[in-house]
């Protein structure tokens, strides 16, 4: 097999996810169950690479641990890492396994805002500081007031609940989850078409720079994409993402 001798532990595939791993990407913070979009993709890729489900080992890692120099404790890391040029200089990414549109979520008090960039400019914006939502925000919306940036989605939600921000930008699945479950009275105003920026936000599996496994992983993902399996997994776990209006 193409993975022989290239994994951290022979015969095993070590996959890292976040701590915690977020809904709707991973269900119940339990990737071992295979429930959720990312575990489903992971197990599909693993089986394409010739690993039994029992041979997949899950570990946890923070963003910082994922990008630290030196040896890594995983073969690849899946936690909605956007592929960017800058990041690619330090670590390796697989080919994308998901293209995420960006969505705008607004608080109850801004629910009636017109879905146009001009109207959105006047709102107070928030976002998660470690995501590519930040450059998108500054590139597309160019808000009048400096946006507030937070450590994770829970903090953004809390700030919205406290009335400190009017709007926030997330990838669409996360935004759907937050507006439906977490932030009372909030609303999904719309999504940006994926081609709105030059580099559409695409999630890749993160690997140590020069990881020999890369080709093997890419091969597996490409195969899944061609066979339509990937689209099937997406439809199973992220089906609600269709039907959200576009913003222009």
């Amino acid at each position: 097999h193409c993975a022989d001798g290239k994994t951290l532990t022979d015969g095993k595939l070590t996959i890292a996810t976040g701590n915690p791993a977020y809904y709707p990407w991973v269900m119940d913070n339990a990737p071992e169950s295979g429930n959720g979009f990312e575990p489903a993709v992971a197990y599909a890729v693993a089986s394409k690479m010739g690993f039994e489900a029992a041979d997949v080992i899950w570990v946890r890692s923070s963003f910082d641990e994922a990008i630290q120099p030196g040896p890594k404790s995983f073969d690849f890391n899946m936690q909605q890492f956007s592929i960017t040029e800058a990041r690619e200089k330090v670590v390796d990414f697989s080919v994308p396994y998901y293209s995420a549109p960006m969505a705008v979520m607004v608080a109850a008090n801004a629910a009636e805002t017109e879905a146009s960039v001009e109207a959105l400019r006047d709102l107070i914006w928030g976002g998660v500081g470690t995501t590519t939502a930040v450059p998108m925000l500054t590139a597309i919306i160019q808000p009048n007031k400096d946006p507030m940036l937070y450590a994770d989605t829970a903090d953004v939600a809390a700030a919205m609940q406290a009335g400190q921000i009017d709007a926030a930008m997330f990838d669409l699945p996360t935004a759907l989850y937050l507006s439906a479950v977490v932030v009372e009275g909030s609303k999904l105003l719309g999504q940006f078409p994926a081609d709105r920026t030059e580099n559409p936000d695409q999630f890749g599996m993160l690997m140590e720079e020069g990881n020999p496994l890369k080709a093997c992983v890419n091969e597996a993902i490409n195969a899944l994409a061609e066979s339509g399996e990937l689209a099937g997994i997406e439809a199973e776990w992220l089906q609600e993402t269709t039907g959200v209006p576009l913003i222009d």
Partner: protein
Amino acid sequence: MKKDDAAGKTRRQIYEEKLRRRSLLIAGTSTVFAFLAVVVLVPLAPGWEKVKASFFNREVFVETFPKLLDAFLIDVMIFVWCAPAITALGLLIALARDVQSPALFPLRIFGAFYTDIFRGVPVVLTVYLIGFGIPGLGLPRPFNSPYIWGSLALILTYSAYVAEIFRSGIEAVHKSQRSAAQSLGLTDGDTMRFVILPQAIRQVIPSQMNMFIALQKDVALLSFIGPVEIFRQAGVFKSLMANFTPYVGAALIFLAVTVPATRYADYLLAKQNKERS
């Protein structure tokens, strides 16, 4: 006049008892009122229900608390091995900065440099640089543990603070004490050890307590480089449940440790002061 033997109490004793009663009464009523004000008024705020649900959520608390306690053991462990190292290193640096002999001048310079750098750089950065940087140089598995290098980062940073406090204590001891010890023929080392340091240390205990309580809380920063201690655990639960109650749980655990620790240190200090006056 003389003691009133029937009542068995002097005028002063009667007065002091009255005062004590009155102040207890004031303390009691004012506490009750303040408490009532908070308990009655806060829930009237329009957002109270939401705040309660996201900060003081019973279910979340019950579910997460035992796991937070587990995670706290890691904090305790790290604290237990860092604290003595910090004290020792801090003391050494303080002594280096106090060296009298001009021949050992470089030591003073080194001490000043050390405290400047490690107090100046935020702990988080030291943790990143040492915790990721040094293992990144290519150390093999057991020696690149984030526990080792993260702890080292804490030790380096905190010993700089602790050294500064020791030094202020040393300088607060009056020069005449050094004269007296030296005139007895004690060496500089003995003078420091038996005369200056005991007085200096006694004086800085409250500040050092502050430092160690701060350390206990900064142990949480090690979570940046991997170890899942109580703070990271609370953060994980917060992210997962989009609820801040786990932080309240963590705060309670911290309070349960730090408050008795401070109280005890204060008590020791008061006892010492009383003994000597």
